[in-house]
């Protein structure tokens, strides 16, 4: 199964961002998307997440519609602890809650935040906050994981460690990932396929196979 974007059109502030844009995303691999700033990479992720509506066209292959998203900023609830932030995305239905609590325990252990689970976001470093955000994205059984420059504000050492963490989580819970970044190093390290997009209206300039599964 694949995810298919077909004949997508989207205008923003009278600017045509997508004009009859089509893209096939392969399942259970990490697809990296790069291209000039403001080209429409984030808009593409937002369209896939349902946060923006296309003017026309369709997105097929997301049956359950279950998604997770690692935003540029961690987007944590400031009044909730790390654990409560993870609990917040618990899928609906009471029978799931108990399992979800043990899932949280495992995830906290995997991302090295067991000790910090009772802390509030304001007490966490930038890297820790982004670890919570990554943990949250793997905690829900999503079909598609969208990542919008999640390591942009981190220093090189922390970036390296978080990318390792991301890859280890992905190995354990494989899913389709669409990953936007400007950083060629991040692209090389994380992506199986790298797509280079043009400026508006978006076209695929290059499709490059980067690493084998």
């Amino acid at each position: 199964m694949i995810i298919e974007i077909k004949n997508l059109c989207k205008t923003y502030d009278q600017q045509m961002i997508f004009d009859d844009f089509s893209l096939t995303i392969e399942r259970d691999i990490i697809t990296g998307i790069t291209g000039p700033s403001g080209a429409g990479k984030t808009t593409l992720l937002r369209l896939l997440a349902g946060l923006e509506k296309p003017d026309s066209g369709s997105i097929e292959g997301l049956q359950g519609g279950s998604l997770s998203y690692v935003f540029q900023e961690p987007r944590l609830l400031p009044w909730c602890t790390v654990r409560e932030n993870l609990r917040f995305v618990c899928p609906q239905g009471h029978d799931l809650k108990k399992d979800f609590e043990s899932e949280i325990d495992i995830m906290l252990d995997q991302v090295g935040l067991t000790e910090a689970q009772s802390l509030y976001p304001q007490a966490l470093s930038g890297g820790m906050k982004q670890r919570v955000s990554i943990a949250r994205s793997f905690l829900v059984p999503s079909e598609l994981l969208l990542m919008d420059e999640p390591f942009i504000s981190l220093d090189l050492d922390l970036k390296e460690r978080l990318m390792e963490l991301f890859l280890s989580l992905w190995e354990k819970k494989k899913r389709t990932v669409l990953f936007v970044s400007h950083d060629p190093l991040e692209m090389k390290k994380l992506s199986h396929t790298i797509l280079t997009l043009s400026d508006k209206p978006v076209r695929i300039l290059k499709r490059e196979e980067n690493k084998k599964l």
Partner: protein
Amino acid sequence: MKISTQLGNKKNIKLGAILFWIVIWILAAWRVNNPLVLPSPFDTLKGLVKLTESADFLVAIIVTLIRVFAGVLFAFGMGLALGIAGGLNRFFYELLNPLVVTIRSVPVVSVIILINLWIASSLVPLVVTFLICFPVTWTNVTQGVFSTDKKLLEMAAVYHVSPAKILKNIYLPSIRPYASSALINAIGLGWKVTVTAEVLANALPSMGMNLYYARIYLETDLLFAWTLVIVVLSYLIEKLTIKALKGSAREVAE
């Protein structure tokens, strides 16, 4: 050490300012030299002692307090519920907003006189307090909903979080500071409006009517004593509310 010295200085400055104005009051009363026009602080204290000896004193305070609380809490509850609904639903906001703006613009005295035409005197202060305090809460709460972090709402939408959970975990904590400030304002306003409405609507028993009787019987010392009681009670309740709100905010944060 430095912080405690600074706090001590701040308290001393406050106390000094209060003493300064009491001295001005004493000097003014001495200059006027007519307790019927301007009683001194000592006359006022004597009046206060006289008031406390009367059995009606406590009854008037309790009844007025009930009116203030009932009016403010009802207004706050309705303002909170309808404010959230208005903040979340544009149509509901546009429907209710002209009414709220109108109520807010009408002079308090007009509201009191109008309401007095329609309902029993004893209920007028309560209804008027509601009408004055409701717009304050509604406006603050809708602003709180409007200023909720859209990025958090997007995150919740992506993860298909239920509306009840979004309300509890995103909207209510976002509204909290707006609602707290609305409650403090409503309590301050509630006191002034309730007492004014008690006077104009002849609501008995009440602190307002005691003020009125003190005026018509030319008992200016009692008029000042009642005013002092109102000011002190209003201050204490406002301080207690702020303390309670701070305490519950800390509980949430912990």
